[in-house]
């Protein structure tokens, strides 16, 4: 039970949080972990608030959804406000896009603003890969999956046309992630 990691990615429809969840989940599969992934599946997946959940474990997973997030990755203010309440009581970490989200002070929770959208626009000339930049940074900061598995997951889950752009975004995210450190508990 205690080796179970619950991750919630949220933002608004179109930012690619659902794809990011799938890529993260597949990376964990590549790392030989058990994974349960789910995402918002209504009209909100096409606009409005979108959510993706990934549960990663060394063992088979029973309850398939996130109960309390150990890691919250927020790409929009609405989604941040909605899910900031549902954090694990211990060692939770919040990663948010610092161009979009204004965080609130929460006792005992480490919150890191990652310039994902800014990096996506400045370095890659395309804000659509902010999700992958965010994911790259999150993986380096939290160590939830290996970098190698992330690369191969992108190669599996992203269409040929956008593969190069997404791999560049991932590497930009990896580089960004090195600037931050998760507090040791």
């Amino acid at each position, binding site marked *: 039970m205690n080796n179970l990691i619950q991750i919630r990615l949220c933002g608004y429809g179109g930012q690619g949080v659902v794809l990011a969840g799938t890529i993260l*989940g597949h990376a964990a599969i590549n790392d030989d972990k058990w994974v349960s*992934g789910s995402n918002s599946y209504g009209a909100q997946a096409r606009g409005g608030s979108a959510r993706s959940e990934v549960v990663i474990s060394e063992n088979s997973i029973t309850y*398939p959804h996130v109960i309390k997030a150990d890691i919250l990755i927020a790409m929009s203010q609405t989604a941040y406000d909605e899910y900031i309440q549902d954090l694990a009581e211990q060692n939770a970490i919040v990663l948010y896009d610092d161009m979009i989200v204004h965080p609130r002070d929460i006792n005992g929770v480490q919150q890191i603003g990652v310039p994902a959208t800014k990096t996506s626009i400045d370095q890659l000339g395309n804000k659509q890969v902010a999700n992958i930049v965010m994911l790259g940074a999150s993986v380096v900061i939290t160590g939830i999956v290996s970098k190698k598995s992330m690369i191969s997951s992108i190669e599996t889950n992203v269409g040929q046309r956008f593969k190069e752009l997404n791999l560049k975004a991932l590497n930009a995210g990896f580089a960004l992630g090195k600037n931050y450190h998760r507090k040791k508990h």
Partner: protein
Amino acid sequence: MKKDIRFVQGNEACVEAAMYAGLDFFAGYPITPSTEIAELLSYRLPIKGGKFIQMEDELSSMCAIIGASLTGKKVMTATSGPGFSLKQEAIGFAVMTETPCVIVNVQRGGPSTGLPTSGSQGDIMQARWGTHGEHSIIALTASNNQDLFAMTVEAFNLSETFRTPVILLLDEVVAHTRERLIMPKPGEINVVERLKTSVPEGTDFHPYLPREDGRLPMSDFGGVHRYNVTGLMHDMWGFPSNNPKIVYGLTHHLVDKIQGYTQEITKTKEFFIDDADCLLVSYGSSARTALHVVENRRARGEKLGLLELNTLWPFPSDIVRKRCACVNNVLVVEMNMGQILHEVKNAVAEPDKVFLANKIDGSFITPTDILNILRVIQGKGV
């Protein structure tokens, strides 16, 4: 050889399993939350030389698979609640004509169009009695991708073995949860092929004349034999009859050919049952929450167990009765108002010790939903 591990949704696991079982023909009318099944098969089936048809509605989809099955093909359709309602008349035709076919119903909230994108387990009784008249039916379910794969193959196997429609009752949560699937190698899971007649061309073929072992071999419709297929009560030639003896015999046959093999058909899974004093009974996605509760409470020393049902119809009354006899309380966990609860109560000697933990608001049942009821049963207050 390295294992072929996929990261797929339940609907994709269902498609992979149908292909593994030898699916030749799919007709459907895509509907949330089953859409991925039709979507994936629309390109997977033609690649292997199979046929995919998007029909004008659910009624015609059901009729199309019956026709294709009679010609010797392995067939499937997939739908959700509203479409399942529309298919009921033709499911009855498949029952009466003893045509093998697999119907996937990815359950969503109902009645009517209900809650298109939310999970539910509200069609359990509809699977059993949705079509009119005395009959029996097989309905299977699963709670995770690996079981879903196995039960989908099993659905095809049972439909061919018993010459009956088999209903695969999934739900939105199982269908859309993305998790790992270890692809079974060819031959790893048994695949049953159709029993075909040995009656040669030029000799009369009686489509409903059983062999000595009771089984009915088939002849591909449109092939070398001419025979009649009708939804009316019929004799061994397949021609309509209202002869009371024939009607009595056929009605009994349609029921007995399944009910009489309940033990062989039944698949269940048991977790921590041996020393349990409280038994949870569940199926489909709800069984995952139930198992979560059982594992957590076991870690605290509470003697909880889980009986997971993969076969819902014919209802495994014997196993339920035996497992429930040894415990103080039984808690049925499902996402409806107690459709399996009543079956469990009917099966056990002490129905008063059977309780319900359910969820009917469209959201997925949580551990807290179960624990709240457990507290009451265990006398710990509300």
